[in-house]
């Protein structure tokens, strides 16, 4: 790691003091390093410190131990949010993986107009979660949206009013979320499928194995790392999910579709419960770390072994 670079060897011969390019390289790292150390890790510690205090509107450094965490875990809205993130995470990640993989397989079957289909499936990715939320709020509007349109076709008892129902609003998040992110999963799976050795297909054709069995028993196990990556990326989206809830349901009706990320922002910015919000943020961070640490480990090993290829 610390082997001398070429430039250093060259300049050290003539004995005189000279500015070395390595020092410039070091200086070039200062801004990014400052941001990383101060704004990422330093601020995480700061948030943790705030979570140990009684702070409400402004930070007050009177420590109360883990009182805020006790309050947090006794908070009904927090538990609703935690339960919701489990439901939403399961449906959203599951839906993205299943539909994304299916779409990738369909596209991989050597179709015409592949580029067009890919462009269409990835179109929602270019839009913000706010835009997605507002569109779907309109589509799922019980009075004038999809429910009304289907009823006008003759099916007068058709019901799709989930967005205004306490017990169903959380599912609407998964619908809008999958719509937006399925294209990304498709693209990642498709890249994986294109890396499959063509000889596998030749061999299976010679042996007369049906295509679906090749996918199920041969290709899918080979795609382990892609499934892993997609799972991690979608989890990260779930943990951060704030914009989509705000635009689609506003966390409602009541707090029935609340998510932890929204709980945190609300308590920090609007409810003058800084300490409680900080405690929520820290719990959220711990969840993120628990989920992504295998991935980080995997990426770092890859970087060390293969130089980042």
């Amino acid at each position: 790691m610390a082997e001398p670079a070429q430039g250093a060897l060259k300049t050290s011969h003539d004995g005189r003091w000279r500015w070395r390019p390595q020092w410039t390289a070091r200086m070039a790292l200062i801004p990014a390093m400052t941001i990383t150390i101060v704004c990422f890790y330093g601020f995480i510690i700061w948030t943790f410190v705030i979570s140990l205090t009684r702070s409400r509107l402004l930070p007050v450094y009177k420590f109360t131990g883990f009182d805020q965490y006790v309050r947090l875990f006794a908070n009904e809205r927090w538990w609703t949010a935690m339960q919701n993130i489990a439901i939403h995470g399961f449906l959203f990640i599951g839906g993205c993986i299943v539909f994304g993989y299916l779409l990738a397989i369909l596209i991989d079957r050597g179709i015409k107009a592949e580029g067009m289909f890919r462009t269409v499936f990835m179109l929602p990715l270019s839009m913000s979660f706010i835009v997605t939320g507002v569109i779907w709020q309109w589509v799922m509007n019980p009075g004038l949206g999809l429910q009304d349109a289907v009823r006008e076709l003759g099916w007068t008892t058709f019901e799709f009013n989930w967005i205004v129902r306490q017990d169903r609003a959380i599912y609407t998040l998964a619908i809008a979320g999958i719509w937006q992110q399925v294209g990304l999963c498709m693209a990642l799976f498709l890249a994986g499928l294109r890396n499959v050795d063509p000889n596998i297909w030749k061999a299976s054709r010679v042996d007369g194995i049906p295509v679906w069995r090749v996918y199920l028993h041969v290709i899918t196990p080979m795609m382990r790392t892609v499934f892993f990556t997609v799972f991690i990326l979608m989890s990260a989206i779930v943990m951060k999910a704030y914009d989509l809830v705000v635009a689609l349901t506003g966390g409602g009706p009541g707090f029935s579709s609340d998510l932890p990320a929204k709980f945190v922002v609300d308590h920090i910015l609007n409810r003058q419960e800084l300490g409680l919000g900080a405690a929520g943020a820290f719990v959220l961070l711990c969840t993120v770390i628990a989920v992504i640490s295998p991935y980080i480990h995997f990426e770092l090993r890859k970087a060390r072994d293969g130089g980042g290829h």
Partner: protein
Amino acid sequence: MRFNRLALYGLLGIAALMILAPVFIMVSTSLKPMDEIRDGSIFALPVEPSFDAWREAWSGDCSQTAGGNCGGLSSSFLTSVKIVIPALFLSVGLGAVTGYALAAWKMRGANLMFAALLVGMFIPPQVTLYPLIIMVRELGIFGSIPGLVLVHVIWGVAFTTMMFRNFFKTVPQDLLKAARIDGAGFWPLFWHVMLPLSLPILGVAMILQFTYIWNDFLLGLTFGGRSGQPMTVALNNLVGSQFGEKEYNVDMAATMLTALPTLAVYLLSGRLFVRGIAAGAVKG
């Protein structure tokens, strides 16, 4: 065989329709007058298409909206442009230099820094939000465009650095060695060798950063204040704050206006976007 092909295209067609339907509904609703919306289905094409709702969403109509949003989206469009351009160049530029330094110059701690940045990409912004507010306020730029630019650069640098670092790692080491033996310093090597090599990745990083910054909501909401509201925040206020009868056509026109810049970039850049989105997906 023939049946299989038909089923294949059938399934793809259905999937494509399901993806496009909400986009179609958005466009057609924005072109309808309100009574058509009330009487007809959301799937119906506008009978008398008009751009009235677009005009109202863009420049505002104070008789219809309450709560200080009668400026329409035009002013927040300008705000978004003023945020995106400097934030885009600063975050991509800083990422390119940092990624280059990490990848091409052997330094103690480079791997540690790589790991720190990788983890940093996954940190939910909510976790560092409050300390960041204090910092920006102490700098005296809270609620202003420079404040938002700074916050976007802070949040973007981990991602842009990773993109460039991973790309520069693929540059053959012999090339770097040769350049160094010729006495090329840090900056000449960057400007004359590395940067020209990295043009494709530069394009990818620009496109994605543009999309992320334009689409951001949380940072704009927190750091924008009243004068620095980007378009996503203004859209959310517009949709949420109408009194009296809701004008869905104006809502949809406003949504369309907010989505258009990133949609246009996506459709024009095609392949580059697809290439980069996988690398940048972690930013959500």
